[in-house]
């Protein structure tokens, strides 16, 4: 009898950590959440990331992202989940598609225009330089000036 009571008195030692852990305190989830949230925009305070914003909606969305991570969704799936609700605007890096083509290719287009203008200018200048032939007197003067400079 005593032995049985003794045995039962040790029973509580077998129960441990049954409590649900707070998601916010799981460092792995937290790290992934922050990594994701840094590239997501807070919609209330538009120039802040979801990771740094203190807006209430940002807090809710961080909670949502934590839970999605817990569900085992991939980063891409989580982004798609948010885009389906808030649009591409939540992404700091907009996706490449028809409506964003100008955004992605515009700078390169401008660069090409700039390069074209530069080339045009250089070619024009060469033509101007080639066409200016000095008269003998002018040449004499140029040489005199250059020699003058040397001294």
């Amino acid at each position, binding site marked *: 009898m005593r032995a049985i009571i003794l045995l039962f008195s040790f029973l509580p030692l077998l129960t441990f950590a049954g409590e649900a852990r707070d998601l916010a305190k799981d460092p792995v989830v937290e790290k992934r959440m922050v990594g994701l949230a840094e590239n997501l925009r807070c919609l209330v305070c538009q120039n802040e990331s979801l990771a740094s914003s203190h807006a209430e909606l940002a807090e*809710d969305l961080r909670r949502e992202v934590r839970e999605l991570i817990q569900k085992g969704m991939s980063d891409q799936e989580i982004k798609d989940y948010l885009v389906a609700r808030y*649009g591409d605007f939540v992404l700091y890096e907009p996706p490449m598609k028809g409506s964003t083509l100008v955004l992605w290719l515009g700078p390169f287009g401008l660069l090409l225009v700039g390069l074209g203008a530069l080339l045009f200018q250089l070619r024009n200048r060469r033509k101007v330089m080639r066409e200016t032939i000095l008269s003998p007197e002018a040449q004499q003067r140029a040489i005199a000036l250059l020699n003058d400079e040397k001294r």
Partner: protein
Amino acid sequence: MMRFILPFVVFIVLTVFLFVGLKLDPREVPSPLVGKPAPAFVLPQLHVPGKQFSPADMKGKVWLFNVWASWCVACEEEHPVLMELARQNIVPIYGMDYKDKRDAALAVLERRGNPYLMNVSDTDGRVGIDYGVYGVPETYVIDKQGVIQYKQIGPVTAENLRKKILPLVAELEKK
């Protein structure tokens, strides 16, 4: 001559771009939800928490779904417009009390008047996330098939009610 014309043209083009940019509202984020079925949910009713409501209950009707809260200042601005719309009885207005305390919401409806046929409580804002809510008030026009046809971000004004929402409702009613 070219030396002066070209920079001038560039200047004009830039000015036009900047001028148009001035008038764009960065808060108006196009919702990806327009044209998609309204996200399903089951939430307790604000006045009778024991009863529930789901958008599926509204199949076959064109209705407005207005997200508001007692703490929302812009909702106060919108309120008379909704009251007038409710009085005209053109389209049913259902409300969602977003991230709010029940007592506070009931008190506000008591004081300002209640334009809603019914309200649901989204206390923790989860349904709000499904609807892409980021700044109350927001208003959705949902058609007979349960598809979101329009989303108004910010207060509904008499003007956009007349120009946008009511013509859309009339058109959807015919379908």
